[in-house]
């Protein structure tokens, strides 16, 4: 095992600890053998293995995309482990008491005590530690309502009809390189099904953490909101500090049927690398939601403060008439971090609406790119999009870019796009300082004000954490 660099200089990243647990790993490298190993250890049915192998076959003819702004050194896929699980999880624990105390301790350090505190907060948590789901709280309460909230591995065993029907229905097997890679080797993730006319009584939440070194994390999340249902789902991510780059390539698929609504919030705080740009997570994630039914709604909210490179476009396919897609984003890049993020809104149904609010903040030597596609197809009459992209620059060495792609194929529909770029205003900082705020408080206040429209979208308890994260990620960036 490679020695870990628990970089003492980088005091800002409070999640940078590793946990010493024994791991079970797949053979090194990407191969049919690895895929069979994963499928086998998860005791998957044959159809699942075949699906994976099909993806692997497709992968061989796909090329890694290179159109994105942030470039990265070539990833050696043969040098990664695709499955790493804490040993104690190989026989699945039946209750929280059976979970390795060290893992529970990790969650405590992350601020997610699984047992009592989340109960108080009313959040059901599915925690993914390296590659497997460790424990899901609140199962009983949810089961009473017919809600299924479990790991995707369990869903494959226990709800194969739902998984077969919806897995890959929004992100097809051969979509693009990283999505297909995920389809071949995904290890775990969350599965949610909300039955018709049911409002999920609590926020559902997953915490992802990469712990083992030289491990890629490929989780897969599938959320289905049946007719007339509602669910709000939260996702938080952290990883220890390591001087190597780690790959995270997740797929998230959302399906909203008639009159259903899904709210998906992410607070992404993967390790960003140190102040020289060494280490950090490559966060190459595919997130896509289908508003399949009429009057359905999918809303993405993301606060992206971590990762060395963030490359993702949570998207909505607005298939059902009158469906609504929303994307609220805060992307903060500091030091040598790079982000190329945005969304795609594809309007297919009549009277469909989409709204995009993006706030990009760049400091240090970082680069921040908003890239978004709004496409209104010819049958999507009377559709609307409103896009607002604001960039805030701190200092002279960072960059902000906005690339909107707009395709409107019918005259009854409108697309509006507004964009601003501003520098953090010295006079505003002076004003705050004159009122007794130190530089960091002042920056945090001004930046949180800049991000307000997005922060407002987050559930209360996440909003507070997100505001703190915003402040922490920009520490030392001015003055």
């Amino acid at each position: 095992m490679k020695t870990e660099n628990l970089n003492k200089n980088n005091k800002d990243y409070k999640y940078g600890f590793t946990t010493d647990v024994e791991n079970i790993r797949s053979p090194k490298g990407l191969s049919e053998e690895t895929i069979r190993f994963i499928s086998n250890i998860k005791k998957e049915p044959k159809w699942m293995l075949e699906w994976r192998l099909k993806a692997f076959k497709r992968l061989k003819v796909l090329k890694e995309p290179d159109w994105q702004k942030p470039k990265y050194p070539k990833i050696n896929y043969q040098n990664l482990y695709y499955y790493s699980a804490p040993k104690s999880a190989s026989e699945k624990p039946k209750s929280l008491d059976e979970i390795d105390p060290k893992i529970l301790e990790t969650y405590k350090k992350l601020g997610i005590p699984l047992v009592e505190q989340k109960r108080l907060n009313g959040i059901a948590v599915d925690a993914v530690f390296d590659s497997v789901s460790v424990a899901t709280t609140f199962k009983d309460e949810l089961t009473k309502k017919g809600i299924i909230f479990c790991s995707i591995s369990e869903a494959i065993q226990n709800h194969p009809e739902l998984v077969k029907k919806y897995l890959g229905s929004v992100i097809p097997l051969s979509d693009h390189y990283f999505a297909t890679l995920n389809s071949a080797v995904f290890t775990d993730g969350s599965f949610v099904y909300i039955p018709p006319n049911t409002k999920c009584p609590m926020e559902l939440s997953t915490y992802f953490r990469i712990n083992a070194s030289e491990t890629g994390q490929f989780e897969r999340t599938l959320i289905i909101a049946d007719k007339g249902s509602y669910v709000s789902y939260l996702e938080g991510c952290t990883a220890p500090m390591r001087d190597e780059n780690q790959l995270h390539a997740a797929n998230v698929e959302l399906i909203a049927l008639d009159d259903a609504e899904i709210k998906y919030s992410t607070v992404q705080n993967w390790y960003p690398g140190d102040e020289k740009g060494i280490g950090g997570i490559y966060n190459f994630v595919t997130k896509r939601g289908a508003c399949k039914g009429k009057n359905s709604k999918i809303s993405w909210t993301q606060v992206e403060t971590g990762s060395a490179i963030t490359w993702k476009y949570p998207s909505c396919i607005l298939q059902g008439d009158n469906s609504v897609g929303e994307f609220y984003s805060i992307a903060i890049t500091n030091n040598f971090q790079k982000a190329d993020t945005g969304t795609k809104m594809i309007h297919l149904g009549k009277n469909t609406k989409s709204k995009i609010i993006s706030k990009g903040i760049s400091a240090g030597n970082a680069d921040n790119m908003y890239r978004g596609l709004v496409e209104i197809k010819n049958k999507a009459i009377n559709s609307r999009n409103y896009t607002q992209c604001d960039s805030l620059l701190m200092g002279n060495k960072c960059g902000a870019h906005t690339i909107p792609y707009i395709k409107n194929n019918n005259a009854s529909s409108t697309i509006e796009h507004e964009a601003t770029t501003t520098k953090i205003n010295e006079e505003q900082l002076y004003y705050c300082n004159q009122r007794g705020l130190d530089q960091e408080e002042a920056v945090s206040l001004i930046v949180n004000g800049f991000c307000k429209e997005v922060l407002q979208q987050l559930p209360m308890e996440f909003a507070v954490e997100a505001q703190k994260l915003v402040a922490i990620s920009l520490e030392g960036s001015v003055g």
Partner: protein
Amino acid sequence: MLNIKNLEATIDNKHILKGLNLDIKPGEVHAIMGPNGSGKSTLANVLSGKNGYEIKGDIKYNGESLSELSTEERAQKGIFLAFQYPLEIPGVNTNTFLRTSLNSIKKARGQKELDTLTFLKLVKEKASELGINEKFLSRQLNVGFSGGEKKKNEILQMKILQPKLSILDETDSGLDIDALRIVADGVNSYKNKENAFLIITHYQRLLDYIKPDFVHVLSNGKIMKTGDAELGIQLEKTGYSNIV
């Protein structure tokens, strides 16, 4: 309270203050008048510690040299500047700003921070004294405020933060007569034996309401003349030309 000796200030190669002397004792009200561009705002900025000036000379505040202190440290020690042009901070609620400010100052002084309820009670009381509508306080700081509203908001902040030395930079400019009276009342109600005011103004009409102990004429980076309240009245009639 404040002793300024031979103060010089230069910014971007422009020599603005050129040997300024001023002494202010607790309980005093000093007015500074002077032509546009004479260096009044520069003096206010230098006292509150704005970055970018090259400073010579000496400023003592309660016996302590200010030169090593940051803007926020000066604010925490009781220096307050009502800005000539108060800044807008989008997305930040006025109440939040006021509370963050008050608590930063309290924290720095080792005092107990105010909880939300106590703070709201305080702010409501002070706002109503200034005839400021409560709704106002939940709006974004200074965003879309009229000129008069911005200035009243500065006085509200002063009354909440309770500074020892309050510098008012043309707070009266652009105010109608009612707003002017409210601002003056705000100052008068806060005035006491312990605190002092440095009021920068162009107009005698403010000094009709707030009676200064001293009036100084600042011109070309220096104080050219000092007198009592009479000097202000005289200046209103004759202009600066006789003096500078």
